[in-house]
């Protein structure tokens, strides 16, 4: 048994957590003065010059975005650990189509779920008698309303844009799920999935919930892994953002992507679809584009297309569903994103 006590000699949990919070706050407030000092004193660049401003933007944005990711995603992951899909499934089973679809979309936002779980999750939902359309609403909103994107938008632009993004994403998922539900979807589900569903009697597994400390530890571990995975994209994204910020004239961007150009929204969606960089890399670009006067609808469409349309996810879903279903799924998501873009632009938000 004495080997088991080894891990107890790890750093004490709560003091370490408190220190981490203090370090985070210090870094957060130091980022702006340090970035100014690096760009204009250490490197001796001219304030107001294109290059100087681009460098200062870069030096401020990299720590700012990484700190936001580390801090807020840890908290979000912790909170989400209380809403596992097993609970969601129980809540969704036996609801009407409209309420079921709306709740599925809402749960898609808060439920922790990595795309490698898509197949067992899909089967698990069907096993509980949840219709395919409702299940797809969950699978649309889960990547579309990306929690990383949400917290970054909140941190960088404030609550208004974050809420608009949330509402737009949920609407796409709900309306998409309802439209998808009108199709004979079961025809395009792989037979082995239906067999697994009808085998029924899936055991209701009861897993002991982890303690608060374990939840926080795991939230921190998964956030650290996430940041380790995405930081190069963040740096590249901020580099592109810094370049646009410093060198690309506002007029150029607005004339290409402005609200007057009706093709702007479809063009950004097509551009974004193969860019599976993930939300963390896209937000810094989004930040600059908004800053340069691109309308919110176009920018949101760009961001949603980047995070929601991903080839890897379609490859995974292909294991449970045939091509026609995937194509309809794709078409509904793309139409939803286009509608969000046009609607927000038309409203002049």
């Amino acid at each position: 048994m004495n080997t088991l006590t080894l891990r107890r000699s790890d750093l004490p949990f709560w003091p370490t957590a408190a220190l981490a919070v203090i370090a985070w706050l210090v870094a957060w407030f130091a980022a702006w003065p340090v970035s100014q000092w690096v760009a204009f004193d250490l490197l001796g660049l001219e304030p107001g010059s294109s290059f100087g401003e681009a460098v200062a933007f870069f030096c401020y944005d990299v720590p700012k975005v990484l700190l936001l990711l580390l801090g807020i995603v840890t908290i979000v992951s912790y909170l989400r650990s209380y809403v596992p899909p097993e609970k969601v499934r129980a809540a969704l089973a036996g609801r009407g189509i409209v309420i079921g679809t709306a709740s599925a979309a809402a749960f898609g936002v808060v439920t922790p779920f990595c795309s490698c779980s898509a197949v067992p999750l899909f089967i698990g939902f069907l096993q509980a008698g949840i219709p395919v359309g409702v299940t797809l609403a969950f699978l649309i909103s889960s990547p579309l309303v990306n929690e990383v994107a949400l917290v970054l938008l909140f941190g960088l632009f404030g609550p208004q844009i974050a809420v608009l993004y949330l509402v737009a994403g949920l609407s796409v998922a709900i309306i998409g799920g309802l439209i998808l539900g009108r199709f004979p979807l079961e025809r395009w589900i792989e037979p082995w999935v239906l067999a697994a569903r009808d085998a029924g009697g899936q055991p209701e597994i009861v897993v002991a919930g982890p303690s608060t400390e374990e939840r926080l530890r795991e939230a921190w571990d998964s956030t650290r892994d996430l940041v380790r995975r995405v930081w190069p994209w963040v740096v590249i994204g901020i580099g592109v953002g810094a370049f646009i910020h410093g060198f690309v004239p506002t007029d150029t961007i607005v004339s290409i992507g402005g609200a007057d150009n009706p093709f702007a929204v479809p063009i950004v969606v097509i551009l974004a679809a193969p860019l599976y960089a993930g939300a963390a890399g896209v937000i810094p670009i989004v930040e600059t584009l908004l800053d340069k006067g691109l309308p919110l609808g176009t920018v949101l469409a760009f961001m949603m297309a980047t995070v929601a349309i991903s080839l890897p996810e379609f490859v995974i879903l292909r294991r449970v569903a045939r091509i026609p279903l995937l194509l309809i799924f794709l078409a509904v998501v793309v139409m939803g994103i286009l509608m969000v873009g046009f609607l927000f632009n038309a409203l002049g938000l």
Partner: protein
Amino acid sequence: MLKIEVLGSGCANCQKLEKNAREAVALAGVEAEVSKVTDYAEIAARGVMTTPGLVIDGEVKSAGRIPSPGDIAEWLVASQ
């Protein structure tokens, strides 16, 4: 001899859980065999919806999270 099964398609999280499970076996000093279940129908039949899942002697201990080697070691000792 305990039977540990790691449920998952082989993504990074599943590999990490398998590593933790092996460390846990060493920590707990028990005899155990670690195997992987990658077949989706089989995973679904266990009632696990979110991978990675951890099963010890047929009992699902965790799903959708990566318990630490210490936690797994405690389960192993308790299941003995």
